[in-house]
């Protein structure tokens, strides 16, 4: 997609980033101690911390990823909203207060509070790093996706820009600055998501989603002449090629030297050829978008309704609707989604997106992405369960969320801030359904990146709203990446160098080593963010949740609730959790596709590992703990 940057958008963006940096400078002057750097000195107000929790949690995955997935796959994207929010129940009811009692600066501190074990210190630090890295990748991918329409920059420049700013923020001020950035951004994200939703309701449903900035593309439909199932005549187009791909008869037509792909469909016993979107990777190098070079801007935005039913009548548009009426109207109507097909034509790699009329009733229930309906297999159902388990159990095992419990003064504050977070995050997640559906019917979808659906929807309602929303989304990424890098630096500088290696650093050197670690982690995050371009960020975050749930949660829960837990049990479960989750992810069908292999040939069909890796880690902890009871030097303190 070709985007024209807007001056207003750039100015608002610069003001936002400058504000964030000034805030960092301000707090940098106050951050002298390790406690200040890693835990904001434990002085943050619970209300501020609660919204900062929301800021940390409502990352690129939530705003960009979930809205994008709902826009592309309907209700299945909303499953992430439900799972992400439900995860906070584990955090509130089981983890928040006991962890606050145990904790110092990092998640490793809490796990190691009863044991002072080298094995725990090392494995927990490694786990923190791996989970944070998995979480960092989608944030950086989101950053790259965002700057393209906002500033007109290529994906990798977005990643580098975020990486550089965040390294600067973290290296200057640490947790205090990160907290206030998250507080401001979390509040703004929720407020402007409400504003965007109001625009959606006010706009209602419309068969032709033109907007002030651009007219919606009028798709070409041709009535062909067929012989023996082959197209022999297609209006004034020349027939260049015909292929049968996965049950679709695709026809390549030529006119004025431009080649376009069409999909042959049979509607009410009438054959028609419907225009598709296409990207052709030429064997000799270069790409064609709908048969033309990218700069010709012919790869248009899509997503529209083919039928609107309101109050039992078919209409062309509805006018303003309330939230419930909006959902009801979508349920009764019909949406044209664009479904991807990939194939090879001669030596060229072709990706097409065909028009896929989908009943609103199918959009509004699970099953379009996660196969749990009629065409489900036991493995596809297991994938669904596994994802829901990972989302439920992952939240309370994310190191960058856990460290926020150490920024408030007391256990009561830890609990209250979690409840504020649940309220704020819950409200936002309910809005994702409206923003995602709004994007799917308003002709704003970029088929190259589902992640841009919500900001592009804002753009359809006005460049001012788009600029603010994009700047907030960018700040969202800055904030989350800052939190993740703080967690990673804590693992390296505090857990590994200071505690595990026993360097016993001075306060100044602890902070210095934290800043150096921030720089190194930031550089690695930039490289990974560039490598994973194009993947849905929420899907990637699902993996981070699975790794966190498997590696960390059994250790946290059993430490808090089972007195026979031993240091070796904890360390073993972390190792097994990491190895099992990572092993299953790296050999999954999705990664197989990423390696350039056929996903059908992957070692297994499980895309989300939690259903296997979590119980495996839990079982390991129980077995190893029971086998090492003699070595249990626990102080037997009742930590709950």
């Amino acid at each position, binding site marked *: 997609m070709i985007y024209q940057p807007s001056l207003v958008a750039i100015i608002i963006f610069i003001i936002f980033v400058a504000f964030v940096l000034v805030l960092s400078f301000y707090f940098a002057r106050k951050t002298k101690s390790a406690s200040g750097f890693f835990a904001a000195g434990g002085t943050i107000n619970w209300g501020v911390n609660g919204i900062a929790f929301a800021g940390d949690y409502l990352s690129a995955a939530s705003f960009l990823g979930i809205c994008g997935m709902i826009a592309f796959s309907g*209700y299945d994207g*909303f499953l992430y909203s439900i799972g992400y929010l439900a995860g906070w*129940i*584990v955090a509130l009811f089981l983890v928040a207060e006991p962890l606050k009692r145990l904790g110092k600066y990092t998640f490793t501190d809490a796990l190691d509070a009863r044991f002072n074990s080298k094995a725990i210190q090392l494995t927990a630090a490694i786990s923190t790093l791996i989970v944070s890295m998995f979480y960092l990748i989608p944030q950086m991918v989101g950053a790259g996706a965002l700057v393209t329409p906002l500033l007109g920059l290529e994906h990798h420049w977005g990643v580098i820009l975020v990486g550089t700013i965040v390294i600067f923020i973290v290296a200057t001020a640490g947790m205090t600055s990160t907290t206030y950035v998250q507080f401001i951004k979390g509040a703004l994200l929720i407020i402007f998501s409400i504003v965007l939703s109001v625009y959606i309701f006010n706009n209602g449903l419309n068969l032709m989603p033109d907007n002030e900035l651009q007219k919606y593309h009028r798709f070409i439909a041709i009535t062909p002449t067929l012989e023996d199932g082959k197209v022999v005549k297609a209006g004034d187009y020349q027939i260049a090629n015909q292929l049968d791909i996965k049950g679709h008869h695709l026809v390549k037509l030529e006119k004025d030297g431009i080649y376009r792909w069409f999909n042959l469909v049979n509607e009410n016993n009438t054959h028609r050829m419907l225009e598709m979107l296409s990207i052709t990777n030429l064997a000799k190098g270069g790409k064609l978008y709908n048969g033309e070079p990218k700069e010709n801007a012919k790869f248009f935005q899509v997503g529209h309704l083919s039928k609107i039913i309101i109050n039992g009548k078919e209409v062309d548009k509805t006018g303003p609707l309330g939230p419930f009426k909006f*959902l009801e109207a979508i349920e009764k109507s019909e949406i044209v989604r664009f479904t991807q097909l990939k194939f090879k034509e001669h030596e060229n790699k072709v990706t097409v997106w065909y028009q896929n009329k989908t009943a609103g009733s199918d959009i*509004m229930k699970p099953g379009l992405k996660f196969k749990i309906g009629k065409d489900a297999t036991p493995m596809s159902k297991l994938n669904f369960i596994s994802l829901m388990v990972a989302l439920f159990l992952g939240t309370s095992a994310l190191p960058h969320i856990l460290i926020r419990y150490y920024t408030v003064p007391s256990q009561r504050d830890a609990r*209250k801030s979690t409840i504020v977070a649940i309220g704020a995050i*819950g409200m936002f997640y309910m809005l994702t*359904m409206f923003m995602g559906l709004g994007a799917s019917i308003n002709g704003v979808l970029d088929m190259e990146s589902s992640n841009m659906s919500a900001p592009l929807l804002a753009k359809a309602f006005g460049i001012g709203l788009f600029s603010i929303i994009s700047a907030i989304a960018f700040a969202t990424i800055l904030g989350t990446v800052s939190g993740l890098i703080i967690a990673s630096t804590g693992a390296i500088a505090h857990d590994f160098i200071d505690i595990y290696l026993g360097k016993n650093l001075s306060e100044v050197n602890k902070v210095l080593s934290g800043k150096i670690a921030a720089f190194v982690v930031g550089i690695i995050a930039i490289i990974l963010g560039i490598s994973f371009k194009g993947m849905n960020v929420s899907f990637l975050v699902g993996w981070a949740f699975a790794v966190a749930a498997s590696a960390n949660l059994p250790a946290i829960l059993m430490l808090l609730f089972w007195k026979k837990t031993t240091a070796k049990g904890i360390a073993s479960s972390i190792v097994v959790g990491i190895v099992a989750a990572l092993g299953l992810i790296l050999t999954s069908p999705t990664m197989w596709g990423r390696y350039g292999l056929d996903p059908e040939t992957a070692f297994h069909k499980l895309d989300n590992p939690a259903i296997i890796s979590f119980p495996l880690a839990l079982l390991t902890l129980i077995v190893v703990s029971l086998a090492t009871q003699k070595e249990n030097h626990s102080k037997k303190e009742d930590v709950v």
Partner: protein
Amino acid sequence: MKHPPATKPGIDRASKKKSKLGILLFIVYSVVYAGFVTIGVANYELMGKIVLGGQNLAIVYGFGLIIFAIILGLIYNAICTGYENKMNKEDIQ
């Protein structure tokens, strides 16, 4: 550990009661959440059934899970605060 915590928590006599309540409410929510997942895999078509105000079960149950989490959180906080005020009274005085 070689360093003190970022803050020093006081003695909390209510922690055991709060913990028991937390586990109970966690089980309640887990059962409701598991119900949602179970319907999804066992009786998928049920999710599309219109159940309330023109909305299908998937929407009502999904939004319901989010709202239920918020309500349970508020209930938990109110009860825990009551425990703390009562059981930690002498420390406060």
